[in-house]
């Protein structure tokens, strides 16, 4: 919407919509809630993604605490068996689909265009649609709590347990249909970011000059592009069975329950890389900056990330070692699973060697990144023990598995996300998060998560099964490895972890109240997103940068001294900014806000609601979707030039519109 004219960049755009699309004229607000709800700005959407994901993180966290309260003592009475099943199902579903994935989408939305020197994404309205579809899908998933009970079959929802006989409430219907909606969000997001990265890089930015975060996000989007349709098929089959009488998982009719397991894990294993690779990208940005060295072996880190993306497709059956696949399948998938540890190990070594010999600066962001390296390695090593099929057969469905994936997902993905918060907060909000509270945040989380998930290794090897809603004193055993003691430790740990996360929320409030602005380049950073103001202007860059190096921003600030072979500073960030402002592009038309993304997304939960309750409601949703699609198709992404005419005289903007073209 904004038309930006120097030297008055803060003048709000004055736009008069001249045509109607469908029934609606273009929204024009640049302030207030309308400027958020109808926005197509990738930065606003990034913040909205992250804020919503944070909300669901708290929801999933409360569910986790209830689980730990239930298991803290023998014969837990906090939850009954049925509610316990719903709790662990929705805890995992929420954390995977409504927290880590959209949080990564938030980071990607905000930083990928900035890192590649673009002014926006390839499909701004599709981007907005993706956010709203995710939000409505997330709400739809959780509606089940109030409408007869949430899904209760575990996040993998194995058949035939997910059928109407064992899961009679509508919970599984809400789950299957809600995940379809968030799947649509992931798919549109993936297409949008892939095309953005392929097509909208600044001049000179070849693929091998792209920052690592952008690289890892690109790999993730390709994984999403090909993994999401597989879960889509599985969810359709499940919905058709539950709502329309199909027989796909009806064992009595001769169905093969392994079909679901295969479809689910062909999606589900790439999914775990979808969860972890964005955080790998974040630490690959953070470690070089705070080690004051370039990333060690950049091409190795890039290609090992891509290799993880490829090999990730060939390991799904290691989730099914106990299902009787036969010795050949088990042997093959054992080997591929061991093989995928190699590119992951390459990354760990590269990060370690990045720090080696560097002038380490232990900010909170850096501490979280180092935390990821250490704890992800712990989780990776227990992962290798799962690759060994005989050992895995012992560990399947015990707490050892729970320990493993919490070390890689909490110790890996979540620590990476927190590292990203501390590193990029000044970029997004123009203020530095408090380092002292950050230190409490970090250490409480590290202690809490090790206390919570560390003992689960012991619980699992002692034979405590997953998904049991109670354990009894009689079977807890004795001595050092008794279940009672370690369950209590894990439960206490989960509350320390909670306090650690609360520290972050406190930090956000404290920082918001702090009047001090962050410096332009607080960390002496290396990549393009730092080569603009904090927070960036709506059009990101006054001048689209031309890229000559990997770490372009660093190379604009520093040059190598021929005599001593040391880097010496030739320009400050402020000087580079001032230079850009002097040469600023004029007449930048940014993509315009639109009603259609939110309207279209709103039609989806109505359709799915109708599938469960009455097909008539689905028709209403379908009409909304069709109507919004036409409005969308008829409206161009950027307002036509005629909209920029007839602006208030005297602001200078009227002349701009007249001069355009």
């Amino acid at each position: 919407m904004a038309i930006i004219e120097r030297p008055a960049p803060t003048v709000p755009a004055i736009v008069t919509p001249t045509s109607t699309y469908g029934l609606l004229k273009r929204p024009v607000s640049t302030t207030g809630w309308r400027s958020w709800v109808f926005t197509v700005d990738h930065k606003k959407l990034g913040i909205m993604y992250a804020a919503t994901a944070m909300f669901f993180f708290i929801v999933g966290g409360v569910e986790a605490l209830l689980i730990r309260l239930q298991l803290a003592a023998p014969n837990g009475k906090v939850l009954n068996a049925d509610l316990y099943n719903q709790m662990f199902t929705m805890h995992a579903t929420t954390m995977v689909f409504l927290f880590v994935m959209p949080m990564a989408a938030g980071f990607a939305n905000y930083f990928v265009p900035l890192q590649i020197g673009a002014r926006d994404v390839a499909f701004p309205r599709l981007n907005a649609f993706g956010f709203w579809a995710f939000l409505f899908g997330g709400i739809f998933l959780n509606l089940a709590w109030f409408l007869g009970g949430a899904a209760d079959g575990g996040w993998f929802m194995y058949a035939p347990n997910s059928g109407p006989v064992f899961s009679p409430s509508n919970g599984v219907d809400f789950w299957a249909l809600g995940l379809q909606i968030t799947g649509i969000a992931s798919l549109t997001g993936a297409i949008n970011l892939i095309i953005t990265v392929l097509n909208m890089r600044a001049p000179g930015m070849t693929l091998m000059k792209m920052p690592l975060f952008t690289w890892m996000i690109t790999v993730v989007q390709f994984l999403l592009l090909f993994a999401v349709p597989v879960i889509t098929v599985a969810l359709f089959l499940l919905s058709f069975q539950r709502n329309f009488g199909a027989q796909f998982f009806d064992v009595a009719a001769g169905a093969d329950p392994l079909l679901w397991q295969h479809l689910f894990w062909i999606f589900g294993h790439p999914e775990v890389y979808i969860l972890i690779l964005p955080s790998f990208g974040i630490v690959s940005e953070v470690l070089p900056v705070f080690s004051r060295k370039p990333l060690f072996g950049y091409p190795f880190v890039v290609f090992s990330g891509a290799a993880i993306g490829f090999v990730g497709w060939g390991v799904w059956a290691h989730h099914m070692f106990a299902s009787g696949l036969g010795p050949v399948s088990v042997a093959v998938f054992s080997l591929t699973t061991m093989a995928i540890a190699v590119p992951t190990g390459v990354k760990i070594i590269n990060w370690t060697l990045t720090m080696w010999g560097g002038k380490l600066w232990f900010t909170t962001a850096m501490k979280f990144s180092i935390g990821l390296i250490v704890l992800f390695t712990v989780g990776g090593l227990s992962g290798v023990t799962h690759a060994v099929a005989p050992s895995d057969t012992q560990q399947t469905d015990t707490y050892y598995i729970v320990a493993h994936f919490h070390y890689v997902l909490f110790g890996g993905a979540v620590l990476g996300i927190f590292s990203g918060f501390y590193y990029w907060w000044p970029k997004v909000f123009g203020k530095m998060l408090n380092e002292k509270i950050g230190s409490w945040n970090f250490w409480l989380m590290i202690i809490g998560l090790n206390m919570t998930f560390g003992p689960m290794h012991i619980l699992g090897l002692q034979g405590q099964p997953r998904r049991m809603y109670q354990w009894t004193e009689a079977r807890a055993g004795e001595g050092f490895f008794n279940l009672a003691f370690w369950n209590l430790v894990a439960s206490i740990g989960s509350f320390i972890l909670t306090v650690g996360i609360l520290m972050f929320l406190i930090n956000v409030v404290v920082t918001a109240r702090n009047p001090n602005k962050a410096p332009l380049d607080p960390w002496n950073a290396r990549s393009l997103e730092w080569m603009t103001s904090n927070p960036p202007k709506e059009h990101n860059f006054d001048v689209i940068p031309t890229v000559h190096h990997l770490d372009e921003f660093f190379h604009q600030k520093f040059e190598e001294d021929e005599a001593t072979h040391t880097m010496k500073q030739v320009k400050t960030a402020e000087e580079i900014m001032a230079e850009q402002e002097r040469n600023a592009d004029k007449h930048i038309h940014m993509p315009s806000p639109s009603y259609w993304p939110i309207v279209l997304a709103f039609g989806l939960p109505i359709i799915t609601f109708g599938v469960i309750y009455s097909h008539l409601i689905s028709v209403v949703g379908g009409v909304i979707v069709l109507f919004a699609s036409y409005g969308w198709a008829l409206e161009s992404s950027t307002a036509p030039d005629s909209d920029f005419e007839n602006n208030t005289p005297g602001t200078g903007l009227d002349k701009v519109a007249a001069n355009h073209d």
Partner: protein
Amino acid sequence: MTDVAHGHASSTGISNVKLGMWAFLGSECLLFGGLISTYMLYRGRVSGGPRPSQIFDIPFTSVSSFVLLMSSLTMVLAVSAAHKDDDRKTNLWLTVTALLGATFVGGQVYEFTAFYKEGLGFSTSLFGSSFYTLTGFHGVHVTVGIIMLMSLVGILKRSTVPGKKAEVVEMIGLYWHFVDVVWIIIFTLVYLIPV
């Protein structure tokens, strides 16, 4: 840099919409891959209902397949006309493509009705469930294609299409050809290869 925002210049030289459609079709491959795998697993499991060989009418389906394949030819003619800025011919060929597609969908509706009368319902057997799901998904894709083609004709007449006309026609053409190619695979695997 307005150009980039409008999608004219790009790092790859291919427009955003076209590359976006390619990415989407890549994703669709896995969707149909999953559905086809499900069908191949279950096609022999008829549990007392009709077997595939008892109900399939190969000559009929061959004709409707031929009609669908011919619609790819007319789609190419539409794209070619659009590149020459010939609105009249573009509209003509888009309409013919939509009609051929509609003929195919009509044939599928007839076929489903006939199968149902012969005793193959959606809930009859695993074969029934997976057959109707796979071919139904394809039919829905063709139907969505027809809606897009007819909408495109309407929009082109009002000449309010945002962006370059030829790019939009070509993008929808990509989708149409993909749906046709998927049918070749489905026709071969479902109808021609005996259980």
